[in-house]
């Protein structure tokens, strides 16, 4: 109820932005779809907002063997980008399921990550893509692997005074004759504008014999951070996703997650939902 913002700064360069962000009471703002709500509820505080809108951080570009998505690229832009839809369909799908369309037109990729929510829809697709988060600080840039970016609910590897500049997704062309299946699925009680109670991003590379040469699974809303399902991946690697393999994976994935009971769903439901999502993904992979 009490937004104690005293100042809004609109820097034109990253250096200027970083200079202002050195203040302990300053926070960056892009779409503001999470931050404004949190400021109003008193879950976060800031006396000074640093608007990132003029820094030119939006846009998708090919950079050698990677695609770089600017931190200020909106969900709507990501969902509609041809390169992302082609190379990273799970990410495009996830971006198109964040909030509702008006939210997608404001919310940015950098914001979705910086917010640090275990339910961040884009996190899973970035985890299975092996993305790197490009962080800028007064001292220079650093690259944080996405798997090391999330530390806990609302907590990330981003330090006070740092900014996300971009997210870099390596391109990996599968060897000839392989089949790639990539999906993002989110479960919530409503069809739109819902925070997931469980989500799965999966990418499988299937060999000519139907066996899984590579499989990456990431899950949302079932642990303190978005997580890679490494136990499930190990249970599957090299196997055909048949009934036995699926059952092993469903059992193994329970070790990858640590869901809680909260206002959105009980832990039991989240465990079962993850089992269903994984089983369905693997069935789809098997069907081809």
């Amino acid at each position, binding site marked *: *109820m009490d937004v104690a913002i005293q100042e809004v700064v609109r820097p034109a360069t990253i250096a200027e932005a970083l200079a202002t962000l050195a203040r302990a009471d300053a926070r960056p703002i892009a779409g503001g779809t999470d931050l404004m709500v949190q400021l109003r509820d008193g879950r976060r505080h800031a006396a000074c907002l640093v608007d990132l809108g003029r820094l030119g951080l939006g846009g998708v570009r090919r950079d050698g063997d990677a695609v770089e998505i600017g931190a200020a690229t909106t969900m709507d832009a990501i969902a509609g980008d041809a390169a992302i839809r082609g190379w990273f369909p799970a990410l495009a799908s996830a971006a198109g399921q964040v909030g509702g369309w008006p939210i997608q037109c404001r919310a940015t990729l950098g914001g979705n990550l910086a917010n640090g929510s275990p339910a961040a829809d884009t996190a899973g697709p970035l985890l299975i893509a092996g993305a790197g988060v490009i962080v800028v600080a007064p001292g220079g840039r650093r690259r944080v692997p996405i798997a090391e970016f999330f530390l806990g609910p609302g907590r990330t590897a981003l330090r006070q005074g740092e900014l996300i500049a971009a997210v870099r997704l390596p391109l990996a062309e599968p060897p000839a004759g392989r089949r790639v299946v990539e999906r993002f699925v989110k479960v919530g009680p409503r069809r739109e504008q819902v925070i997931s109670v469980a989500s799965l991003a999966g990418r499988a590379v299937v060999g000519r014999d139907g066996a899984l040469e590579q499989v990456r699974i990431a899950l949302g809303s079932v642990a303190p951070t978005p997580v890679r399902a490494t136990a499930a991946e190990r249970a599957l690697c090299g196997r055909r996703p048949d009934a036995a393999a699926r059952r092993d994976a469903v059992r193994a994935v329970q070790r990858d997650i640590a869901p809680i009971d909260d206002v959105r769903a009980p832990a039991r439901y989240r465990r*079962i939902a993850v089992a269903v999502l994984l089983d369905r993904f693997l069935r789809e992979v098997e069907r081809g």
Partner: protein
Amino acid sequence: MPRRDSGARRKAVRSDHGPRTTDHGPLGGCHERPDARAKVAGSTRYVADLALPGMLHAAAAVSPTAAARLVALDTAAARAVAGVVAVLTAADIPGANLVGVIFPDQPLLVADRVRMVGDRLAVVAARSPEAAWRAAALVEATLEPLPAVHDPVAALAAGAARVHDGGNLVKAFRVARGDTRRARADVVVEAVYHVGGQEHAYLEPQGCLAIPEGRTRITIVASCQCPFYVQQAVARVLGLPLAAVRVEQAPTGGGFGGKEDYPSEPAACAAVLAFATGRPVRFVLPRELDMQGSTKRHAMVIRHRWGASRDGRLRFAEVDTVLDAGAYAGISTVVGERANVSAIGPYHVPNVLVTTRVAYTDNLFGGAFRGFGAPQVTWAAEATIDRLARAVGLDPLEFRRRNVLDDRRRRTCTGQLLPRPVLARACLDRAAELAGWDEFHARERAAGPEREGLGIGLALYGCNLHHGGQHLDRSSAVVIVQADGSVVVRVGLTEIGQGNLTACQTIAAQALGVDPAVVQVWQPDTTTVADSGPTVASRGAHASGMAILDAVRRLRARLDPVAAELLGCRPDQVVLANGRAAIAGEPGRSVEVAAVAAEMAARRIEAAATGWYRSRPRRFDAESGLGAPYESYAVACHVAKVHVDAELGLIRVAEVAAAHDVGRVIHRGALEGQIEGGVVQGVGWGTTERLALERGRLANPSFTDYLIPTAADAPKVTIAVLEGAPSGGPFGAKGIGEPSLIPAAAAVRNAVVAALGVEIDTLPLTPPTVVAALGDAHPFAWVAEEENEDARSAAAPASR
């Protein structure tokens, strides 16, 4: 006024309660709503858009716990906040510290004891809303915890913590007919239903603006459903006569019952602050506090024992309902009264025993909500009807056909004889037909996780106020014909988004034979119309329409002679239609109504009249629950088609076929809008809208976590309107506001149960509830079981 039409015509007119007009007119049409353009364009000014010079903003300090003794209250830090003008506590209220509508059990500001989370401890007025809320957060209360009770059934058990000194039973009701213990039945179904509450989720939060005139008079502009309740509450806390309190209805962005009783509270706060500071005070509740502190649909625990014969005839029904009233009685007893007599539905049951108890708890308090206790008991009744149908091996549609009230069996559970025609069977059949019931069941469906189901909800709705509230069932109208032929109408019932302005405009235009565009309906103000009671119980069009017709009748005693003179006929030959006064049977000779109005003005003839309506007296014995609780009834039948993901428990309500007994259509667009809105709100209540109460605190007081349906979730609604059953309303119309919601959730529940093959007795049907109901039948139930075992054996560290 004498009528000299033919005998048949006179009879028809009397049953229609309409004056002499031709059938040509706006009635049943779809002209543009008078308030539509401003609302769509965003130019309607709601309370939060109003500002006056020197205006202050109010905020409230509320209790974070549900049950405690207030030991001390320190307001020093709050007073020290820059911009704060006043911080008031119970001792500062000039009149009575009381806001209870029926029982004197609720203080405006807590003086000694907290009974629910959100109880107000102090109110603040400051120069900005930010300063007011910052100060409110700094009010320091010393609270000594008391034992609390949060389960309404436990609250009625011996030894339960007492919410009020008189005990936790607020009131009990019953209906007893025949002998349920001795009735013979081949199949008996027993079930306990846990039906959750609901948040009104009006788009515009609660709010009002109080404008003092010294310390002698005050004007309140309020977003509400009953300016007269607000008037009474403000007069009481300020110690003023009613006539010194003027309440003006603000454009109101939704009510759904949530603005019947509750707006008295913010209004009384703002009034006390306005008197203390001598300045206008605006009080608009932030969404979280609105959700946490305002009334809710009552949660109920409903126990059933119903029996039927082998051939599918209902033999007896026992219903034992406990309502969670929450911390204060509010109007819970009135809700209990309606729940009590609505518990059986439109079925012929020879032996009935209904008991309904209203229990205090330390939860949020229940209040009015579209349906007023009927949706909960209908949900339970329709679930039991489906159970019985399955038990005797009958199609649920056929089972209902064998038991539904009709022109031969037309006594309700209270013994009231319904007038013919009874349209229950017709509504049932129309909805089933619209939904394609037979075709759906003729198709084979593959077993798999993607399921489909059809379910029926059938409800009998008592129109207008219950016998116990009939002293409130009256209304006032003023009709003024201006010199240019335009017409001013003011009624005591309110426009809250439901379309009452449209209904009143149509009725007045029809009665005066003019185009609706020349009729301007104005929102009520307590200084311009008499106390008309609350805009509730689907009575808006009925009560205001009848008062308008009365006013038009009185007005025409002066208008018709003038028209007759201009036309050269007798006054009783004058008919009004198409904007003209004409001679009955001689369509060639007519004069514009505007010309008659000009003539009245020129001759200084009074062109204004008041009108009055009161419902007919009826007999009802509250002790036995027998008699006529309502003047008339409406039947509503919904058939829902759902898609269910049997593994994730996700429900998608694809389509709802809605058949409604509406008496007579006043405005087709408004009617269909009400039906679609009622269906969607009922579907939301039945599926995703869960009030997550944790020891009396609402853990999801936001639209992020309290999930109302979005446009993407709204089902396709197909509508069948059945006209012709008698109502006692204007032109034969019946209310639609509540019947449009009542059966929706029941239909969805029965469709989901049909799709999954397991009973679900807890509302709402959230995905976890559906998955839990599947139990071991779920293909991955073992996952959770194994995890439980692992957790037990490893005594694993607590998860996050």
